[in-house]
């Protein structure tokens, strides 16, 4: 099965019953697959007039009670960014798949890239804390899409699947479990839907048509949804809670995978399709006796600060190969003083194991 198709399968397995999208290479296959699969499960599909319409109708459908998703690539994320910010402040669960391609702008539509890592988090103005996963296989396109839905529902945030064209168009075997663990949004009819003093910081979420007299708004609002655009205390509480509700539980989201790191002096940190080459590079360097290991980032946001800090203590240098000019490499530098060497490749082609090996050797000389 193709990676894009596996992503759609994961969405259906997670309970997604609404999809709105707009054609864009290399994500269109997700939309095509969702048309067929949503018909199987009596879901709802619409191809909207643009990406802004897509994210908008996804949010509207989520408030009508749906687990809703859209998929796009870099240019589409740029268009959806305002809507993503709206999902942040209204605490609307939704899943956005970004099958990254070579950018910036129109770039190379049919070629892979990893240049949207910062954009999905920092694109919307203001602060946020959201969830993003980077699949490296067709299996993960399925598994991590399910995870994205579950965290979206749990935290009431927009959640991203940060794929890339390489893994999106890859064909591999997919193993589908009979039973999938699915998390549903918290419901409590008489509690305010936009504020809480509960420790997990996540209010209940009614749906339209339940008689809740919902006041959904993108303006700063009190726990009942009334606009409070001149109230400093409300603004402070809202902006803090929106971030803390994820940050306080980030250890339950953050997922990394260690390969050959036990006795490493050198580390490679990688994610997405690139991590496949990174693993290969690490294995071949090990054969020559280099004590090198790989830390694969499965989740990108919230960022694995502690894992990086820990890694920096044990290793004397960290290499970060990525299909961008050093976005995650730059993020690593916030959490460790150990030298972080960026190995960027932005020619629209995937990074090869030999290139990573060469990059490490060049530094070591």
């Amino acid at each position, binding site marked *: 099965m193709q990676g894009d198709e596996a992503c759609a399968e994961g969405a259906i397995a997670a309970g997604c019953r609404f999809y709105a999208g707009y054609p864009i290479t290399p994500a269109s296959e997700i939309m095509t697959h969702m048309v067929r699969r949503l018909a199987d499960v009596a879901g*709802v599909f*619409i191809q909207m*007039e643009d990406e802004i319409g897509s994210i908008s109708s996804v949010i509207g459908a989520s408030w009508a009670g749906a687990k809703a998703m859209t998929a796009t690539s870099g240019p589409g994320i740029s268009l959806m960014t305002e809507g993503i910010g709206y999902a942040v402040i209204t605490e609307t669960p939704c899943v956005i798949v970004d099958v990254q391609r070579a950018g910036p702008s129109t770039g190379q539509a049919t070629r892979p890239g990893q240049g949207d890592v910062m954009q999905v988090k920092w694109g919307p103005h203001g602060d946020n804390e959201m969830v993003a996963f980077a699949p490296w296989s067709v299996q993960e396109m399925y598994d991590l899409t399910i995870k994205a839905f579950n965290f979206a529902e749990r935290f009431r945030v927009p959640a991203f699947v940060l794929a890339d064209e390489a893994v999106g168009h890859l064909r591999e075997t997919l193993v589908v479990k009979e039973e999938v663990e699915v998390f549903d949004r918290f419901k409590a009819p008489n509690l305010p839907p936009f504020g809480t003093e509960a420790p997990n910081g996540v209010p209940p979420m009614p749906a339209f048509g339940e008689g809740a007299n919902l006041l959904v*708004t993108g303006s700063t609002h009190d726990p009942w949804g009334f606009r409070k655009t001149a109230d400093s205390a409300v603004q402070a509480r809202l902006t803090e809670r929106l971030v803390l509700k994820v940050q306080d539980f980030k250890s339950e989201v953050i997922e990394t995978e260690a390969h050959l790191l036990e006795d490493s002096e050198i580390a490679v940190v990688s994610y997405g399709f690139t991590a496949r080459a990174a693993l290969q590079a690490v294995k071949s360097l090990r054969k020559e006796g280099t004590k090198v290991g790989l830390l694969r980032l499965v989740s990108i946001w919230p960022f694995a600060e502690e894992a990086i800090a820990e890694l920096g203590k044990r290793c004397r240098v960290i290499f970060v190969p990525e299909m961008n000019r050093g976005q995650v490499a730059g993020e690593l530098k916030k959490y460790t003083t150990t030298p972080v060497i960026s190995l960027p490749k932005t020619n629209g082609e995937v990074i090869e194991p030999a290139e990573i090996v060469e990059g490490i050797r060049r530094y070591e000389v």
Partner: protein
Amino acid sequence: MNEKIFQMINPQSFPTPFCPGCGHGILMGAVLRAIAELEYDMKKMLFASGIGCAAWIPSPHFKADTLHTLHGRAIAYATGAKLFNPKLKVMVISGDGDLSSIGGNHLIHAARRNIDMTVVCANNGIYGMTGGQVASTTPIGSRTITTPGGNLERPFDLCKLVEASGATFVARQPVATPVPLTRTLKRAIAHRGFAFVDVPSPCPTQFGRRNAFRTAYDMIKALKDSCIPVEKAKGLAPAELRGKTIVGEFVNSTD
């Protein structure tokens, strides 16, 4: 005769933030009256709006599910909600700039789809909330803060735009004549398919003061005096229609 209407609002959000004499306040009452006369259940309705003074008509004043979205996007948000729960009776109430400028694309596509919703455009021919900038509906020659020498651009005829896009109910009634307005709103709300009502609604603060209207009533009176029913307008030349507000139903189809 407002007893029923008082049950349909959130009283803690009154008095409204609208300026004294704002046409949008009149429209707010007309919408509530229409729903009350239709005996629709507010619990089954969804009111979506964008950004601007008009978008504050339903949010937070209506005691119902309200969806205050982003500038220009109310129709797209409402489309998602309606498709997932078709039982919702969906109304979009927003301004002319919101619906036809930044939101123009969603407007024409929703009309093309003939999706079952009612879109009410509170049309004051200006961007009021942000201080009175020119809009896609501002008359030629009007003064606004971004057209201090008089607007050079031609305005949309929103009814023609939406009709051409495929809407199956298109009408115009101003706030100056609240009885025909309420009647038309009822027909639009009850219509199955995409219904659009252009509601000219004066903005005394941003438009009126810059265009030699001394009071809110002066604007209401001028608006009322400019009205000409669609049947009468058919026989007139364009020059005779300049400055006139053509009112009535332009499209009412059950396709």
